[in-house]
Structures are given as C-alpha cells and as structure tokens.
C-alpha cells in the first residue's frame, strides 16, 4: 500500500461518507524511505475542518509506520468543486446532500439542482449559506423536503 492508500482512509470530518482524497483536497504526496510530505488545498479560507483534516492525515500515516509526516498547505490554484470525483458525488447524493454541478452558473438564480431524495428538478434556494461553509440550503417543491446542496465554487 502506498501513502495515497492510507490517506484515502481519512474521512472528511464534516461529511464522513466521503474521504479527503475524493473531495480533491490532497494535491500531492511525496514519499521517501520513511518520510512523507502531503500537500493539501483548503476548501474555504475559514473552513474549521482543515485542522482536523491535517491531523487525520498525519495520524493515518503515522499509524501506517511513516516516521516523519509533513503537511504543506497550497492555496493556488484555489480549490474547486470540479476536483470532487464522480464517485464522491454519488456518495454525497446517497447521503442526502445534492452534489455540486459540474459547471458553476454565476449570478442570482444559478443552476437547477435536483432533489437528492426524490430526484425532482423543481427545487428552490432558501439560503446560499448552510451548516458548513461549503453548503447551501434548498427545499424540494415536489416532496417538500428541505435539503443541503454542496455549492459549486
């Protein structure tokens, strides 16, 4: 197993059904004999989960036997939801969170977002801000359920 495989076992602390690699947070992993350097990109400037993600990655690699683990933060290019894998998008949907669109629409209104529960495209934006920086609140006009949408950035 490579260092990448160990890092893949680290869940996203806010959305534990997906891991940090499939969320596109891990940029690069450099391995030497017993030392490993991991470069990560924060999702939002103020995301409080980043400290947790760093310590999660460190812990998983130490447990795997790497003696020295260094975590570097890289800001540019800025993280984008395009880096979230298809598999992770599917997991988000099954978890009840509408995944981000492949292409972001700008301006008021934005894309249509399908309800993760009933699949209806008839959904309405309640607020662009939700329980974490990365999510917006929507409500389905068909099944009337409120749900979270992972917003496109």
């Amino acid at each position, binding site marked *: 197993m490579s260092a990448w495989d160990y890092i893949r076992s680290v869940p996203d602390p806010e959305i534990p059904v997906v891991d940090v690699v499939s969320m596109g947070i891990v940029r690069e992993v450099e391995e030497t004999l017993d030392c490993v350097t991991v470069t990560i990109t924060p999702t939002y400037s*103020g995301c*409080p989960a980043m400290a947790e993600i760093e310590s999660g990655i460190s812990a998983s690699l130490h447990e795997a036997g790497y003696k020295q683990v260094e975590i570097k933060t890289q*800001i540019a290019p800025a*993280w984008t939801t395009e880096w979230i894998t298809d598999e992770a998008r599917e997991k988000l949907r099954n978890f009840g969170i509408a995944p981000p669109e492949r292409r972001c629409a700008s301006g008021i209104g934005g894309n249509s977002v399908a309800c993760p529960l009933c699949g209806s495209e008839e959904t309405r934006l309640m607020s662009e*801000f939700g329980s974490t*920086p990365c999510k917006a609140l929507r409500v389905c006009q068909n099944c009337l359920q409120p749900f979270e949408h992972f917003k496109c*950035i």
Partner: protein
Amino acid sequence: MELNMELRGQVFDYLLRHADDRLVLGHRLSEWCGHAPMMEEDLALANIALDLIGQATLLYKLAAKTEGSGRTEDDLAFLREPSEFRNLQLVEQPNGDFADTIARQFFFDSYDVLFLEKLSLSAYTELAGIAAKALKEAQYHLRHAQRWMLRLGDGTEESHNRLQDSVVNLWCFSKELFVPDNLDQVLVTERIGVDLKAVNSSWQETVTDTFREATLDIPGDEQYFASGSRGGYHTEHLGFLLAEMQVLQRTHPGAIW
C-alpha cells in the same frame, strides 16, 4: 518574487490594511450570531464572518512571513492598538439594525469583488493566490447582500425607509474605499497592489444599478466624508470592538487551548 528591504515593509503595511478590514468586519458580523432575525440569516452571517476571518488569517500569515521578524498572525490580530489598525472606518461601524448591517455589507462586498478580481493578478504570487481564493467567497457574499438590498429597499414602506436611512448614514464612509495614498501608488507601480481609481467606476455602476432596482435614492456628494483610516484614524467604535476581541490575549498573554 524577491522583495528588497524597503518594499518588504511596504507590502507588510499593505497586507495589514486588507487583513484588518476582514478581521474587523468578520468580528462585527460574528456579533449577530444567535441574534439574527431568522435562522437562515444567522447561518449566513456566521458563514460570511467565518470566510472573512479565514481570509484575514491567510493575509496576516503572509504579512508575518513578509515582515520576517518572528511575529505570528495571532500577534498581529490580538496585540496591536487601535491606532495601529489600518482597516476602513466603514467596517468598524456598529451593526445597528439589520438594514444597517446589510447596507454596510453591500458597500463592502461590492467593493471587495472588484478589488479581489484585480488583486488576483498581483505580481506577488502568494497574495494573488489568496485573492483568487477569497474572490470565490466574496461573490457569494455580494449576492447575499444584493438580494437583501432588493428585498428591503423594494419591500414594505418600513423596510424601505429604514434601509434608505442606513445608506444615508453610511454614505460618508464610502468614499475612502477608493482614495489611494502613497502606499497604494507605490504598489501599483510595482504591480503588487490594486489601482483603486480603476475599481471606483465599476463600483459606482454596481451601486447605481442595485439602488435603482431597490428603489433607493443615492445620497448626494455635498456632505462630510470620512478619511484617514489607512493612516490609523478611526471612529470611537474600533476601540470598543478591539477591547472585546483582544481581552483574552491581553489578560493572559500567550494563552492557548
């Protein structure tokens, strides 16, 4: 890019200005937490505060690194006096009612999107990277403020009147967003900073369009306008804000948990 001694000090001062804007406004918005008029708004304002404080952290870290004297981002945030803060007077104004907060936020966000677009082209690549990241967040913030400007301005008579009062009261803080000083000019020449004059006309357009749609009158220019905040001149409100924000580090220096 390699900065010589003189330029290093200038970039440090420039980074502080823009970090201070974000820390002070973020702190103001965080005062709404648990008090906003509705649940969604409570989350929205707390989220925006979090983004702004996160951006401030990145800028303070870069400032500390640029200065190279061993200070940390926390030292810069918690151990400076009000006269050492370089934020705009606009962002330190009290929250007032919800209309006051929205008007203040609209003025700042509409400026911030334009400012960050230009800053993301800075020759100081680490600064450009922070700006590009912050821009994505600022676009959400602006949409939020614009929606509320429309909803309140073109809403009931009461909401319209209160928002109109708010924009009149805050108008005197709007000019200094675009008045460049020597430092701005030096850093424009070095292609590190933003040419504020170039941003000003686009800002006027955004304000004019939003005000028209929100049925608000734009206040006239025959009045007092605040200035001097980039030189450390502030309204009395900043001291109280910092006293509350810094009390822990001032009382127990170096405390961590």
